[in-house]
């Protein structure tokens, strides 16, 4: 019967109900979008790293898993690594930022093609000159450019020589030497990839390199891609935790206001319930159930809206931000929304429960 009363109340004020559901859905969407972005960006990074086709990655000392904004390694190191036992192929790349989350990567295309199997071009083809750029499909779509067109970047115009399928190292690829010279990093590399003669030798090569190159993070690609997760990035984890708290606070505030107003509107109803013998607990339960139902509906709305935010990002900035759908976070976001809603409903609920029945019945 309580559920019926709650449902009828929600139905009786559809605008308030819809608005509350929507507003509770917003922090749920926010949380799912941010977590989805974190997971999506990391998964995309890992996918592109796997697309290199290497067995081992050698990174400069002091670098984190994701940051490679400088090129501190000498190209001579690459030459040395080529001579290591069991190293079949070696190639170096250079990474340089062009926007907040957008990087360009310089590659030696011949070496890179030998290691990765080469780009699969949808339009155009490989570099024909030093001022050519290869874009992946998403970035080309985001910039609205086709093969043969030009894009402006790093204060100059580049000819788009080819548009390739995504998933190989980077979204924007320049000739290595050009990028090195342009950024004052001639002869410098950001990262070195190695392919060994047999998968069984990967561990031995890594052990040997670690012994020789103290302080250099050296990973098997399997290890490297598995490390690219939220759990290994404390800053990202903290960020998600902060956002979770923000979501609880927003959910609390929305439900507090909504239920506070509802209780004011329903003063007479509460008086009637009390005259019928409803206890404080009964009245509080009605308010809490209503808040929980709103939060459940808000969670579903938030999940739906997170698909909307992903669609919007795919339409507007497919190359810059990749949002994953994170079903494992749906119950977490739902529980967080519910906790915020229950907290927000507590004070209005207690106020309702404490109302004097005579005053409540006299309320017009």
């Amino acid at each position, binding site marked *: 019967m309580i559920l019926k009363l709650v449902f*009828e109340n929600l139905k009786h004020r559809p605008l308030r109900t819809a608005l509350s559901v929507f507003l509770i859905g917003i922090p749920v969407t926010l949380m799912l979008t941010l977590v989805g972005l974190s997971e999506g960006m990391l998964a995309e990074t890992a996918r592109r790293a796997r697309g290199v086709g290497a067995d081992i990655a050698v990174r400069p000392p002091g670098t984190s898993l994701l940051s490679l904004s400088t090129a501190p390694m000498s190209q001579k190191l690459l030459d040395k690594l080529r001579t290591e036992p069991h190293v079949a192929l070696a190639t170096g790349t250079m990474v340089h930022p062009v926007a907040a989350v957008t990087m360009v990567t310089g590659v030696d295309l011949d070496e890179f093609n030998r290691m990765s199997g080469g780009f699969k071009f949808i339009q155009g083809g490989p570099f024909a000159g030093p001022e050519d750029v290869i874009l992946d499909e998403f970035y080309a779509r985001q910039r609205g450019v086709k093969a043969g067109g030009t894009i402006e970047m790093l204060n100059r115009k580049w000819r788009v020589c080819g548009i390739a399928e995504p998933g190989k190292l980077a979204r924007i690829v320049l000739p290595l030497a050009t990028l090195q010279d342009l950024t004052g990093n001639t002869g410098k590399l950001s990262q070195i990839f190695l392919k060994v003669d047999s998968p069984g030798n990967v561990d031995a090569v890594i052990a040997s390199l670690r012994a020789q190159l103290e302080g250099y993070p050296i990973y098997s690609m399997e290890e490297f891609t598995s490390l690219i997760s939220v759990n290994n990035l404390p800053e990202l984890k903290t960020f998600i935790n902060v956002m979770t708290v923000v979501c609880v606070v927003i959910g609390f505030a929305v439900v507090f206001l909504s239920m506070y107003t509802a209780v004011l509107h329903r003063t*007479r*109803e509460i008086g009637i319930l*009390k*005259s*019928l013998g409803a*206890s404080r607990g009964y009245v509080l339960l009605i308010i809490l159930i209503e808040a929980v139902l709103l939060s459940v509906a808000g969670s579903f709305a938030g999940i739906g809206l997170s698909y909307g935010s992903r669609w919007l990002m795919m339409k507007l900035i497919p190359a810059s931000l990749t949002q994953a759908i994170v079903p494992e976070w749906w119950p977490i976001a739902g529980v967080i929304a519910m906790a915020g809603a229950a907290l927000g409903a507590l004070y209005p609920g207690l106020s309702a429960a404490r109302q004097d029945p005579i005053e409540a019945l006299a309320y017009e």
Partner: protein
Amino acid sequence: MSSPSSPIIAIRGLRKIFHVGKVDVEALRGIDLDVEPGEFLSVVGPSGSGKSTLFHIIGGLTPPTAGTVRVASEDLASLSDAGRTRLRKTTVGFVFQKFNLLPILTAGDNIALARHIGGNRGGETARFRGVLKLLGITERLGHKPSALSGGEQQRVAIARGIVNEPAILLADEPTGNLDSQNSQTVLTLLRDLNERLGQTILMITHNPEAAAYGHRMVNMRDGRIVS
């Protein structure tokens, strides 16, 4: 429950003082009253005479300031807020001037809600089905209050008031919002409930004609029973 020979409502020296800002308003100034089980008592008096306050105290909606009030053997002066809530749930039923039905629920659900609050989870009893028939609202239970006439709403409110078979039905100006024809219907129904089911009824009214439906009438003025 009271024994048949003892009053179901026994009030001695009842006083009620309301604190309005810094002023004390004495609404009841020493009431003595007995109501026998199965009695239909009318309480009449002008506005401000204290009859509604008496109604609220007997119904457990507010505690007395002094004196003793025994309702179905419960001493209301010693009851906590939870105890008064229990009294409203099990011992008294209310009928209000403004009907006080929940507008979002159908007539049937208004009655079902009272049953739920009263802790009755089973279906309607044969006795209650008979009451619904007597009240003539069986066909109107699926409608919301806004689709019912004033008389129908009040009959639903009466059904709700007695659905948990309370020892006492308290009716506060039950015909105050009704035209004369509906007033007569409601008053006749209250008298039928009293006569057929032995329902104890305490009715507050301004109207001497309505008061005449009771077995006995007490007059209140300035917080006292004057006759």
